[in-house]
């Protein structure tokens, strides 16, 4: 109960901060629109031999990947805001109050989750006129997957922020982690195009499972085994990441 209340408190403040920095919102909207308008036409050509004859088919493959990539990069970079708050003494000020330590983390991760979900809804809406069709139930399940994914990446990012000493060190660390994760989940092009060894490597990447699950949902195959597999992998990974970064948060004191 106290955890929920405290998390809400932290979340509200974080949302306020986000609204006060409109440049972030602008960037958050413009970037995915570019991806959608400038990259998807290319994809249609590439996927044509696989039977994707129309924009609608291309978008069914591409939109879930785009959402995941936003999640990977957006989420993994949220640690920067935590670094800023650590430096400004805001975290320290919170930590002397009786507010729940986990809430300090969850409130921030939830802000990231909501921001990403808003982006996801926007992208879905923009893709509709191009022929993307997905049933509301499947869409909701996909958003659930995506929300958990955002929670997971931001928790990991907060953990990294607590471990690296400076912003200067954080950027290369995050990039080095995010890049292979993104490539190995087939976010831009499906991994069915990849050689066998690459496909096998990708199976160790939780994001691969998430993307596969989302693609199944967007193509209307809610019963596909990749859906429950994706959900399972993401739930387990989210719990582990939040646990890990919460532990770090309460022990590593700066």
């Amino acid at each position, binding site marked *: 109960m106290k955890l929920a209340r405290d998390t809400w408190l932290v979340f509200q403040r974080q949302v306020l901060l986000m609204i006060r920095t409109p440049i972030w919102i602008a960037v958050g909207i413009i970037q995915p629109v570019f991806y959608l308008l400038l990259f998807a036409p290319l994809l249609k050509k590439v996927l044509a031999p696989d039977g994707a004859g129309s924009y609608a088919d291309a978008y069914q493959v591409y939109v879930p990947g785009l959402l995941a990539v936003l999640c990977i990069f957006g989420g993994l970079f949220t640690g920067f805001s935590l670094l800023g708050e650590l430096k*400004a003494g*805001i975290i320290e*000020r919170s930590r*002397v*109050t009786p507010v729940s330590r986990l809430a300090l983390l969850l409130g921030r991760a939830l802000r990231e989750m909501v921001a990403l979900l808003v982006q996801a809804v926007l992208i879905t809406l923009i893709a509709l006129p191009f022929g993307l069709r997905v049933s509301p139930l499947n869409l909701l399940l996909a958003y659930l997957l995506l929300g958990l994914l955002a929670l997971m990446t931001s928790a990991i990012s907060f953990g990294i922020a607590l471990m690296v000493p400076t912003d200067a060190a954080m950027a290369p660390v995050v990039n080095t982690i995010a890049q292979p994760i993104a490539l190995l989940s087939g976010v831009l092009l499906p991994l069915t195009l990849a050689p066998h060894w690459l496909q096998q490597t990708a199976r160790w990447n939780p994001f691969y499972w998430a993307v596969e699950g989302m693609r199944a949902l967007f193509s209307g195959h809610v019963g596909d085994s990749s859906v429950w597999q994706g959900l399972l992998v993401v739930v387990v990974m989210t719990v582990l990441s939040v646990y890990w970064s919460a532990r770090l948060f309460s022990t590593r004191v700066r």
Partner: protein
Amino acid sequence: MIETTGLRKSYRKKTSRKSGESPTVDAVRGIDLSVSAGEIYGFLGPNGAGKTTTLRMLATLIRPDGGRAGIAGADLFTDPAGVRRRIGYVAQGGGTTDTVSAREELVLQARMYGAAKARAVQAAEGALKAFDLADFGDRPCATYSGGQRRRVDIALGVIHEPRVLFLDEPTVGLDPASRAYVWEEIRRLRTEGMTVVVTTHYLDEADALCDRVAIVDHGQVVAEGTPEALKREISGDVVLVGLEPGEGVAKRAAEVLRPQPYLHRLEVQGEDGLRLYLEDGAAAIPQLLRALDGAGVTPGTVRLQRPSLDDVFLARTGRSLQQS
């Protein structure tokens, strides 16, 4: 109100291999304190003495390596949550968010201490009045002056009316008027029944503001008591002699003066300064001028003053606070 015994903390050093020193920094090595309710208690010490580390331990921000501590009846080790409810803490660098206003920060802070929304809004309103923040309290924090920000920091630290308030260097970097204002606020909080612990490396601050002072150096308390009692330990007066610059003048002058019967102690300060401790400064000055003259040393300036806390620090550590 605060009792500690043998509180200590060491940090792992990162660059120990090169220098071959011990692999840890003993930031705080065994601090015993006993602060009574309603006191303004000062930690006076040079940079790196361990003041912040001690305060952060007492505020539950870092776990001590050893010792015992109780604050307002709550044990630091077994009941940190209880300690948090009873204390307020204002960090050396503050901790406000640039894009929100003081009022918004105050409301959030009150809510983090568990107040319901309406009560928090009320508490923020009260704090804006009490700390004279109303003029700027609805502007973003980024626009405040150093002094204004400090007032907001302190207001945030006491929004929940704690029994004990820890202030880390509350007046550092402030102009004299803002410093005086902060002192006034601290005294006001004391009259409201709060126990206040402040750290400082300003001598005059410790002297004028604090009821009792612990002088800390290298993680240990080297002297403790009321400023008056501490200064009384340094008997008599202090005479500062400035010499005409020249090769080895300070050393020569020291040799001449050391045997003088009225002198308790003598410290050489730099190339051309002496600090003399003696019983009756006014009576001794003519004699020591004569002695210096006889040895061919020309004093440039002579100043008589009452002992300060710096003299206490000097007597205990052999160093001056103002130099370190």
